[in-house]
């Protein structure tokens, strides 16, 4: 019954976000999630998975579903995440290099499509690297009133493997595109000096042949790598509490590694995949209260588990089970999640189940994530 209530709220939020009305009020207090700086504190419903395309700069926010939830999440939790790749010059960049294909031809020589014979499995490491910073407050089952933390995190896709079939498909689509763009009907548009640049762009992108080729090309490129290994690291610092006579101190330090085996299932949807994830995390946790002296102490824990997810074009469902091997006792996390992508820059996330330390009780979080777009229909100002 409780899950139904949460699901109802999520669906209502999706409908509000898709309507023409300003969704500020409806989405203001929803939670979001997956930057390492947030996930470290166990307040996000999913593990670290590097998205295909991170915004060059984005803001995330997360709040408790209820202001006084047992997990003690406060109402002032914000993270910024940015991708340095887009802010520096990309040397000798071209389409093939961006897609991790390598030619054996010496630099400066003309290259043909058949010269791209190798695949750079580390090619995504810099391209998909992102850094996040977060400010958050919560009790985290340690304090009586929410305390403040500052977190920093980084993540990337360390390894990416595409099959020979996937690579051949990309090369074949490039050839089709190049041939079409060299056809007489395209040349005739560029040859006309009376057309403005805007008119040229419209004329080309309106051609039926162009639209068909581009659509097929994008579909090929959107296929997930057969295997990807994502890694992340994050550190959270406890800012201290003068009222309890506590100085600032070590908070949490975590390392993640997530392997993703993706099986393309075009019979279900054009971009549908079934993912099988393997998850590993090492956590050095300073948020443990010694009952006797009342001081914070550090514990080490190792998490490992698996997640299975069905990803459709805009909607995805998942279930994860993770075991935590810690110094004092073993715990587990069993959480189902749902994610709905409204647009390229706007996603709603939800999760429910049993989290670590929740002693059998459920957690429920809903989230939003969007790019820093000055035309955004959502505002962060809590007074609005």
């Amino acid at each position, binding site marked *: 019954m409780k899950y139904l209530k949460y699901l109802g709220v999520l669906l209502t939020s999706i409908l509000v976000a898709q309507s023409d009305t300003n969704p500020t009020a409806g989405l203001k207090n929803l939670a979001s999630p997956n930057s390492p700086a947030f996930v470290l504190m166990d307040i996000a419903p999913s593990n670290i998975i590097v998205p295909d395309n991170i915004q060059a700069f984005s803001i995330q926010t997360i709040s408790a579903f209820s202001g006084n939830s047992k997990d003690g999440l406060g109402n002032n939790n914000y993270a910024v995440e940015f991708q340095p790749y887009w802010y520096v010059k990309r040397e000798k960049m071209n389409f093939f290099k961006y897609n991790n294909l390598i030619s054996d031809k010496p630099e400066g020589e003309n290259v043909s499509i058949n010269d791209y014979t190798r695949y750079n499995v580390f090619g995504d490491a810099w391209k998909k690297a992102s850094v996040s910073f977060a400010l958050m407050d919560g009790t985290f089952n340690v304090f009586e009133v929410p305390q403040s933390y500052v977190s920093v995190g980084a993540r990337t896709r360390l390894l990416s493997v595409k099959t020979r079939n996937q690579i051949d498909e990309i090369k074949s689509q490039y050839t089709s595109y190049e041939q079409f763009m060299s056809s007489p009907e395209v040349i005739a548009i560029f040859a006309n000096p009376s057309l403005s*640049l805007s008119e040229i762009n419209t004329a080309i992108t309106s051609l039926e042949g162009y639209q068909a080729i581009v659509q097929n090309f994008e579909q090929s490129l959107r296929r997930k790598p057969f295997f990807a290994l994502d890694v992340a690291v994050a550190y959270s610092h406890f800012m201290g509490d003068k009222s309890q006579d506590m100085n600032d101190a070590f908070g949490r330090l975590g390392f993640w590694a997530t392997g993703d085996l993706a099986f393309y299932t075009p019979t279900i949807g054009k971009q549908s995949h079934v993912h099988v994830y393997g998850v590993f995390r090492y956590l050095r946790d300073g948020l443990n209260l010694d009952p006797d002296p009342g001081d914070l102490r550090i514990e080490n824990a190792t998490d490992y588990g698996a997640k299975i997810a069905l990803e459709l074009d805009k909607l995805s469902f998942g279930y994860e089970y993770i075991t935590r091997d810690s110094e004092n006792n073993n715990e587990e996390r069993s959480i189902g999640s749902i994610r709905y992508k409204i647009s390229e820059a706007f996603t709603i996330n939800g999760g429910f189940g049993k989290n670590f330390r929740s002693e059998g009780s459920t957690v429920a979080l809903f989230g939003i994530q969007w790019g820093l777009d000055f035309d955004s229909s959502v505002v962060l100002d809590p007074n609005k």
Partner: protein
Amino acid sequence: MESYKVGDNAPIKLKVAIETEAIPMTYAFLYHSINDQTPYSYMTPFDPTQKTGWKQLDNGNTVNGKFFRVLTFLRFFIDFPDEKTFNLAIKQVEDTYETSINGGDDGPYTIPFKIEAVYATKTCVLEGAIKLT
């Protein structure tokens, strides 16, 4: 309109340089005069990131007094999450795009260009033009 002194020199050559995640296609046209609507000669379209060398105008014939246009059309095959990220990709195009002409009396010359980028179609068009004297 900029001009480039070629006299009776031949061949006059073109080179296009660009560093981008997109697929660029370059088109180059020669007109008898600036008012002509149809070119009398054009190069086979090419991807300047793959065909990087110098290319002859009008198969190496003299081009004195002609009007030369070079255009490059870019299409990004990236699912940009927002327009800001697209604009950063376009900034790299602006910073690295260079069309050079060579073989004239004064050696290599970089042709100025104008640019139009459209986020909705993930495309960009660049155009440079020069009078050959």
